[in-house]
C-alpha cells in the first residue's frame, strides 16, 4: 500500500511539517512505499537556501534533497502553489516533480495522511 503524506504549512513556524517528514522517513525505513505532496504554503519546504540557524532550528533541506536515497519515492509539489510562491527550476531543491492536478494525484494513493 502506497502512502501519501501531505504538507500544507510553511516551514519552521510550527512543527507539523517536520513531523510529517518523520512519518515519511519512518515508512521508508520500514521499506513501505511513500511519497510526499507539498501544497499551499507547504511548497516553501522545497526552496533552496534555507538557513534556520538564526531561529535555532535545523534545516531539513538536505534531508529532503536526499529523500530518494532514504527510500521516499517522490517529492510532489503543486504547480500552482510553486508559481504563487515564485518557485522554479532555479530555486527548487533537486528531485521535485511538479504536478498540475493535485486532486487526481490524491486519488492514486490508498493511504493519505497529514501529521496534524
Amino acid at each position, binding site marked *: *500500500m502506497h*502512502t501519501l503524506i501531505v504538507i500544507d504549512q510553511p516551514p519552521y513556524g510550527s*512543527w*507539523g511539517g517536520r*513531523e510529517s517528514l*518523520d*512519518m515519511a522517513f*519512518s*515508512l521508508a525505513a*520500514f521499506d*513501505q512505499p511513500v511519497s510526499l505532496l507539498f501544497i499551499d504554503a507547504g511548497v516553501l519546504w522545497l526552496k533552496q537556501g534555507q538557513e534556520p540557524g538564526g531561529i535555532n532550528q535545523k534545516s531539513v533541506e538536505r534531508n529532503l534533497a536526499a529523500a530518494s536515497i532514504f527510500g521516499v519515492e517522490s517529492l510532489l509539489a503543486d504547480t500552482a502553489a510553486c508559481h504563487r510562491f515564485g518557485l522554479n527550476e532555479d530555486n527548487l531543491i533537486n528531485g521535485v516533480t511538479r504536478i498540475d492536478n493535485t486532486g487526481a494525484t490524491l486519488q492514486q494513493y*490508498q*493511504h493519505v*495522511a*497529514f*501529521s*496534524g
Partner: protein
Amino acid sequence: MPADNHTFTLVITGAPYSSQAPETALGFAQAALRAGHTIDRVFLYGDGVHLASSLPSPPSDEINWTRAWSDFLQEHSVPAVACIASALRRGLVNESEQRRYQLPASNLATPFEIAGLGEWVESTIKSSAQSSRVIYFHGGA
C-alpha cells in the same frame, strides 16, 4: 463477532484542552466497539501526546480526558502508544526515559506506553487489508 468485523487504528494528533480531537476520537472508539469492531491500537502523535499525561487537573465540572481515555483503554484492553520523538520534545516521559535523560519526574499515565513511529508504520501495513482502517483525529482551529 459479526461477519463484517473491522479493525481500526486511531491516530490522535490534537491535545486535550486545546483541541476537540481526543473527544471526537473517544466517541468514535466507543461506537466502533459497540458495533462489534476491534481497535488494535491508539497512536498519539504531535501535540496529541499530551493526552497521555498523568498531571492534568481540570476544574471539577470539566471532564478529565486522560482519565476518560485511560478508563476506556483499560476496560477494553486497547493498547495506546505515544510517539517517543513527539513525547520527549513535549515533556511526556515514563520512568525509563526519566532515568535515561536524568529528569526530575515522570508523567506517563497508565496504561499508555511510549514507542517509536514503527508502531504506526505497522498499523498502516496491516490496514492494507480491506477490513482495516487507520483513522486520524486532528485538532481544529
